[in-house]
């Protein structure tokens, strides 16, 4: 009973292709995120959705488009893949709590994307 799952776990593709990574959480959380871990190992937030509404949109190329069909899913579509998109992408989820509380984020296992 995986809490946050991502598919696929590994993705190898050619430059210029379009690909999608899927994320699902069964924790009943109302907020989901996408993070990118680059070659320098930094985890950086890309997007966040709360109840299917985009609330965080960092400086990410518009080739990246998140889609949230419902609260339990947040998919990441990437168009015209480039070599620099190679990274590990992590999905996460959390539940909004009262103001002043920390909302623990639960991470998926990651998707390693390799662009050739």
């Amino acid at each position: 009973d995986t809490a946050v799952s991502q598919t696929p776990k590994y993705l190898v593709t050619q430059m210029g292709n379009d690909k999608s990574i899927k994320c699902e959480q069964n924790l009943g959380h109302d907020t989901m995120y996408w993070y990118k871990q680059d070659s320098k190992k930094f985890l950086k937030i890309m997007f966040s959705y709360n109840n299917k509404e985009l609330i965080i949109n960092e400086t990410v190329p518009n080739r990246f488009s998140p889609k949230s069909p419902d609260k339990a899913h947040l998919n990441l579509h990437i168009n015209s893949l480039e070599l620099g998109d190679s990274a590990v992408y992590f999905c996460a989820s959390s539940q909004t709590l009262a103001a002043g509380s920390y909302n623990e984020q639960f991470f998926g296992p990651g998707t390693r994307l390799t662009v050739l």
Partner: protein
Amino acid sequence: DQQVKQNSPSLSVQEGRISILNCDYTNSMFDYFLWYKKYPAEGPTFLISISSIKDKNEDGRFTVFLNKSAKHLSLHIVPSQPGDSAVYFCAATRGNKLVFGAGTILRVKS
């Protein structure tokens, strides 16, 4: 602009001894600080947090200390166990946005 910095890429400690992982930050508006632990091929898992209004939080073998004047926090693991070997990420948050450091690889030798 790295708002959260972990200047030690790795740390090696003998089993049973104390592990001390350090983290510095630049943004005084962060309201929570956290440590996440990551094993290979897995996502980060939450370990312990501390509110910006506190200076210490303890949970079993793990204690986080916050020095706001120095913009510094540290994670102490006592006693260290081989199963603690992992990458430890320091993170800070304001609202829902988590800002991570680059991580420190901890190796606990038996």
